[in-house]
Each structure stands twice: as C-alpha cells, then as structure tokens.
C-alpha cells in the first residue's frame, strides 16, 4: 500500500528566504507524484507533478520539486518566498496502476512572515 509523509506540519519562514517542504512516500511500484496548494477556504490547486522523465520538475508560482527514487522523496522548494505563498501544501502519490486512488499527505502549513 502507498503512503505519504510530510515531515513538517508547519514551516515558518521570512519573506524572500528560501524554503523546502519535505515529502517522503512509500510504494512497492512506480508512482506519480504531485504537489498541491490550498489557500484558506478554497479547494486545492495543482502546483506541479512528476510523471516520468527529468527528476527536477518546475511548477507554477516559482516552485520546483525533485524526485529522488533512492530516497523515496519529492521535496518542494522555492528560492525566495512571498507573503502570498502563505498556504497549506499537500504532497500526493498515485501508483501507475492505481487509477484514481491518489493518496494525500497530511499537509504542511507554510507561513511567510514580513
């Protein structure tokens, strides 16, 4: 069975500082990996996804993530954050044969301070 662990429930960071949100997964088969962002009282928005190919994936709003198969990780990074990046971020995984059973992590709340 698949699982997703987001290692930090909250990450406070100052504006213009770099940030990394950590995500580890477990699966016995090859996977697709995703990061979503959720602003207060809204649905989720897909930030980026890894399906195959290059392990460095670039997404919207200046975010990127790197797939590391040996460490089963998919950490999300941004070199310089803005106040507007304050939100909850979810890592998710689905295996190639799992169809619609995407598993979500518990979320990491990113709080950007001025």
């Amino acid at each position: 069975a698949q699982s997703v662990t987001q290692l930090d429930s909250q990450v406070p960071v100052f504006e213009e500082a770099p940030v990394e949100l950590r995500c580890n997964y477990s699966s016995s088969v090859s996977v697709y990996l995703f990061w979503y962002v959720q602003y207060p009282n809204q649905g989720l928005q897909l930030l980026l996804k890894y399906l195959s190919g290059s392990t460095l994936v670039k997404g919207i709003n200046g975010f990127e993530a790197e797939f590391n198969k040996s460490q089963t990780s998919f950490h999300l990074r941004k070199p310089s954050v803005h106040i507007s990046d304050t939100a909850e971020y979810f890592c998710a995984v689905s295996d190639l044969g799992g169809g619609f059973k995407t598993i979500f992590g518990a979320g990491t709340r990113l709080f950007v301070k001025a």
Partner: protein
Amino acid sequence: SQTIHQWPATLVQPVGSPLSLECTVEGTSNPNLYWYRQAAGRGLQLLFYSVGIGQISSEVPQNLSASRPQDRQFILSSKKLLLSDSGFYLCAWSVEGSPQPQHFGDGTRLSIL
C-alpha cells in the same frame, strides 16, 4: 474553459438530518469525478470517485453515498448525518484517463450540531 462549481459553501446541520451536496463541471465531457473529505490536520480522504454516469466507487464505508445522474453532475448524500461527518468536503475532476484529480471546487464546510 473548464469550471467546477460546488455548493453550498457552508452548511450547518443537526445530527440525524439528511445531506445533499452538489457539484457540477462545465467545459468538459466525461470527466472523472471525485468527492474528498478533509479533516483538520489531516490530508484528503477519498470518499467516492466516478468514471461515468451511474458508475460510483466507494473508498470508505460509511453513512454517505454518491450519485452521478448526469455526465457532469456529482452529488454527495446522507440520509442521517453523524457528528463525525463534520468536515470540509471537496469535489474534484480530472480528464478521462488522468491519474489524479486536477481541478478542485472551493469546498463545502459542513458543521454538524
């Protein structure tokens, strides 16, 4: 362009009352449709998904049910709500064959009293 509408945005219901949450998608045909529940401090839990009219798969046995009476309409229902049904409910869709939900509605915050 495609849009997803989910309503109501907030709902307060007494224990034992019925529930009906509606979700519609526009601008696409034969989407995969999903209902998720999000509890505070936890990730999203997939409740139901549907690949076509009348085709519903349930992921978690509970007192909720889902129906898809039309291609782009997905309804979440309950005959008798429990306190534990409180939460944030999200509808989502993806293109046919896509491996993950791509677009989410703005959610319904359901409070059971």
